């Protein structure tokens, strides 16, 4: 594999996967702690009707109308979930289930009826993503990483996702104290004047933004995996939220890179002429990382605890 091949074919999907993993993984910390993990699941499903409507209204397959449509659909979904939950006095899981299946079904029927399917949109693409389809053909060698002309040809989707990821990281750093307080003690946060509802709404908004920006590149399933697995991995390893956020970032990047390696390089090294679905492979890696943490985490791991119980003398003075 030459440098040009790597830059053209492998670097773009690796970058996209990593950026998507970071954007979703950082937010996931707060979703997991607030028992809102499945909000990411619901929102990534309603992206499909959003892009279909965006396409039908604008008549173009450009990214902007589709992203706007997806964003609007996410907003509508959040409002509908809250409405159904309150009107029906339901648990939020059931409300989410009703809303996102209804919207997904609507998107599906609209897609088939309008003929949009023939143009560009396809359901499998929305579910599984098209990481491998992103390439940077202008690259010839390492020097192009600093060459403005070559950089201008980097696919727009990469810049967009990098921008969203940066925005999310900056906002989380800036509002870390407020987020921490309103997550663990909404009552105190309210008393101190932090407006926890506003923060909660902002968090859901950012979740929608991340889901919409990432799904086009990586598909909804990887989005769900990255919302939950890195944060859950980090949660197994530490009790401190700041440490947890850093660990989740590490887990997200690790899952994305090792997932890509397992999908593309592993079959090559084994001499097989096939490439596996990279987004799916990243999701599996994120799940395996979490499994490892659940079993072997120093304090909370299932096996570690069993081992400690078997040797009670080793217990550090508790």
């Amino acid at each position, binding site marked *: 594999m030459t440098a040009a091949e790597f830059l053209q074919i492998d670097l773009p999907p690796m970058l996209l996967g990593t950026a998507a993993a970071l954007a979703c993984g950082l937010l996931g910390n707060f979703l997991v702690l607030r028992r809102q993990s499945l909000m990411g*699941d619901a929102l990534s499903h309603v992206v499909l009707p959003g892009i279909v409507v965006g396409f039908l209204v604008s008549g173009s397959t450009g990214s902007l109308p589709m992203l706007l449509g997806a964003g609007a659909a996410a907003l509508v979904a959040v409002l509908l979930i809250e409405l159904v939950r309150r009107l029906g006095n339901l648990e939020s899981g059931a409300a989410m289930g009703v809303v996102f*299946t*209804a919207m*997904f079904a609507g998107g*599906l029927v609209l897609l088939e009826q309008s003929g949009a399917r023939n143009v560009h949109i396809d359901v499998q693409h929305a579910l599984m993503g098209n990481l491998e389809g992103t390439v940077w053909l202008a690259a010839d060698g390492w020097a192009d990483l600093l060459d403005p002309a070559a950089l201008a040809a980097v696919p727009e989707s990469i810049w967009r996702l990098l921008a969203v990821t940066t925005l999310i990281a900056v906002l989380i750093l800036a509002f870390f104290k407020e987020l921490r307080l309103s997550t663990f003690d909404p009552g105190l946060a309210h008393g101190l004047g932090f407006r926890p509802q506003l923060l909660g709404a902002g968090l859901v908004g950012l979740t929608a933004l991340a889901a919409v920006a990432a799904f086009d590149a990586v598909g909804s*399933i990887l989005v769900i995996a990255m919302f939950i697995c890195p944060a859950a991995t980090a949660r197994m390893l530490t009790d401190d939220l700041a440490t947890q956020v850093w660990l989740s970032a590490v887990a997200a990047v690790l899952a994305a890179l090792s997932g890509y390696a397992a999908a593309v390089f592993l079959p090559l090294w084994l001499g097989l002429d096939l490439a596996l679905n990279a987004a799916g492979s990243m999701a*599996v890696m*994120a799940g395996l990382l979490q499994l490892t943490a659940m079993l072997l985490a120093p304090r909370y791991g299932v096996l570690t605890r069993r081992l400690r119980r078997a040797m009670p003398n080793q217990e550090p003075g508790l």
Partner: protein
Amino acid sequence: MLAELWRYLALDAGYNAAVVVIGAALLGAGGGVVGCFGLLRKRSLLSDAVSHATLPGIALAFIALALLTGQGRQLHWLMLGAAGAALLAVLSVAWIKNRTRLPEDSAIGTVLATFFGLGTVLLSVIQVMRTGGQAGLEYLLLGSAAGMLLGEAQLVATASLVVTLAALLFLKELGLVAFDQDYARAMGYPVASLDLLMMALLVAITVIGLPIVGLVLIIAIVIIPPVAARFWTDRLLPMIGIAAFIGALGGYLGAAVSGVRANLPTGGIIVLTLTALFVLSLLFAPRRGVLAQGIRYLRFRLAIAERQGLLAIARGQPVLEPLARLRLKRRGWLTATGQPTTTGLSAAERTARDQALWDRWLEDYPNDAFGSESWASAPIEQALPADLVAELDRRVRRAENPA
């Protein structure tokens, strides 16, 4: 077009189509019955993990079949693979929830995404294998009644019927466990086994529904009918009956409509039909429906406004609140200019007396009064026992003239 739809609805569009429509209706009924227990146990989204987790099982079964027999699309084997993976997913969720510090919603999300991710990886392997019938897998993602073979439709119909009957057979036990686990355990029921049975039924109906509804939307048939049925009743047995009816109607109408137009995705149409039934229930169900609740709320507002207006008259103050003025004028207690009439004055006196009794009750029995929903919203004689009202009356009189 309409005539065509009618032929499907009347099961007159050929034997094959009739079996598909009946199968979809039975599937909907089974989903409604099984889903009721899931909703009561607050486990609605567990079925989302179950349905997505079937993909690697299907793909593995397909690969094995293709390698062994050269033909991957053999529905009963694919379903068996799906059921195996789904069962593993249910156990994984339970393991994460019980053995680690992670909450159930994270467990559901992790299992859903990891299993589905593995499924997509295996699908990319299948694409490279280029064996016969690989197009046959996409229909399990989104469901298609039109493309179903007769044997497949018969399989769906029979299996749905079996699952529904099994759920009905253990109705009492499952209902008890769903409502009150501790009580069920104290009564000597094997709660853990019954829980497992419930999960097994959930897995079964999910897997059976795959070829018709598809794995992305299958959870709708176990969530929407019970949620819709919940609006109509508070009791378990009627709820299960209504959920089964709504599910069956959704499956029947949806499969018939999508049979007419071949390019309509069956799963999508069934779910939209169910959604329409849900919205109807949400709006028009008696008591719990939005319309009924709105009317009740309006009546309450009017009663409060009337009382406040009368109390204002009794204090000799003008009635300012628009809603109260409207109501009192309707009753003939206020003139057009807002002056109280004679009947209005006597009504005001009655209400002031009533309010005094309510106030006394609040002061003397604060615990009872705070727990009461009817405090000062109805004449006190209607809400409290007569002897208590008489006692309050005595106390009020004594307070008014201590001599």
